[in-house]
């Protein structure tokens, strides 16, 4: 299905609290119970399943999205409390590159084989996008430290660092 088509409220009926998100550039309205997390809303209601549920406790980073431009763990955000915010997921990044293509980070992860099973990859890429926007990492050591909220059980860290460094270098941000 086309995940960009958001049918307002239909999926959850009339109960719950109405909220509106700017979701990958599209306005998305829904009714949610207070205990629904942003992660569950993204996956179960908006059918944006690129954002992964790993530990569901903020410890692994697989659910990382950009909330109003900043990387956060979507499993620890209640959907009602982020009403009115802009959310960017891996699906949104996939169309943000030049000419609507892949984000340069996505291409770099492919070029550097920065994944094995790939389950952590959407969170890693969203986190790396946030890291670049923050502008605090210029060296390998700084990239490693500031990517430490994303765990990869395969241990693909070296290639992930290579991929992030290559984009920093291309954008003239590496030291």
């Amino acid at each position, binding site marked *: 299905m086309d995940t960009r088509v958001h049918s307002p409220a239909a999926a959850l009926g009339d109960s719950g*609290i109405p909220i509106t998100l700017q979701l990958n550039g599209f306005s998305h309205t829904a009714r949610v*119970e207070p*205990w629904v997390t942003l992660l569950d809303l993204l996956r179960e209601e908006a059918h944006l399943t690129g954002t992964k549920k790993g530990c569901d406790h903020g410890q692994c980073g697989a659910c990382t999205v950009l909330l109003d431009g900043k990387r956060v763990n979507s499993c620890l*955000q209640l959907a*009602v*409390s982020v009403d009115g915010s802009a959310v960017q997921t891996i699906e949104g990044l996939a169309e943000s590159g030049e000419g609507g293509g892949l984000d340069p980070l996505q291409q770099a992860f492919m070029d550097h084989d920065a994944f094995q099973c790939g389950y952590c990859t959407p969170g890693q890429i969203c986190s790396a996008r946030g890291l670049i926007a*923050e502008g605090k990492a210029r060296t390998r050591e700084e990239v490693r430290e500031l990517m*430490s*909220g994303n765990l990869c059980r395969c241990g693909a860290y070296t290639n992930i660092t290579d991929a992030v460094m290559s984009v920093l270098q291309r954008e003239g941000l590496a030291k």
Partner: protein
Amino acid sequence: MNRFEYARAADAGEAVRLASGSAMRFLAGGTNLVDLLKENVERPTKVIDIRRLPLAGITATDDGGLRLGALATNADTAWHPEVEARYPLLSSAILAGASPQLRNAATNGGNLNQRTRCYYFYDTAAACNKREPGSGCSAIGGVTRIHAILGSSEACIATHPSDMCVALAALEATVRVQGPSGERSIAFADYHRLPGDDPSRDNQLADGELVTAIDLPAEGYATHYTYLKLRDRLSYAFALVSVAVGLRLDEAGRIVTGRVALGGVAHKPWREPRAEALLEGQAPSQALFLQVADSLLLGAVGRGGNDFKIELARKAIVRALRQAAAGTPQSQTDKRVA
């Protein structure tokens, strides 16, 4: 997660009004509360969302200090130019904690009020006087690697998990709160409680009281400071032991005043004014720093699995004092210690 009512407050007055008369929790960044809701450790009937309150500013105070809004995120605080320039100890401590994603969401008020990460507190099948008063303490006699060596009681040996608070203790910050009976200020040293016989209360907040800001005094120890954090892995782990040090040196290199706070060792950031007094008027030396460490650790007791922390803390205190005196603070990127 239990079901709960949700209410959104527009200002501090409304938040305090909404808070009256029910088992409620304030929701800000959510990074600790939502986790505790999922674990059924916190079971409020009402959650009051305060994230839209106008308390995210970082502004100068009349006495030359800095006011950190309760809703400023940990990341915005750590990277704020005034904090970086004047209170680098605080920046360093914040950046030693959690992960970038968590620091982007977590707020300053929430950092103060986060709850212990004691495994038995999180495990609702275990006895825990903090979670369920009177039920006992499964940590005592259990796995105690992360537990307290100072200020604990037979009711509770949990530690406060914050890094930020250890720096705030050394900086002698003030916590500003608003509640049903108005506003008041609490000295940071008095804010968190020792467990005593009621570990269910982590701090001195009364029912319905809300943290609105943290005030930093003018003295920020910007030249001679360090935040040294020792943990089981180099990133994204709670401290086994951490040390925040701020020193003021005179032109001859003697210590005018010194502040030392420990993290990971007690129910609250641990300070000992008598240990700090030893520093006054003295030239930095290994012998002096050992004396300060011994004084800080007076009365420290292990519970088996955490016995190692006493010697670890002693060495960390000496190293941190040396780093601060030399003006070579611990890097939070290059963290290996030989």
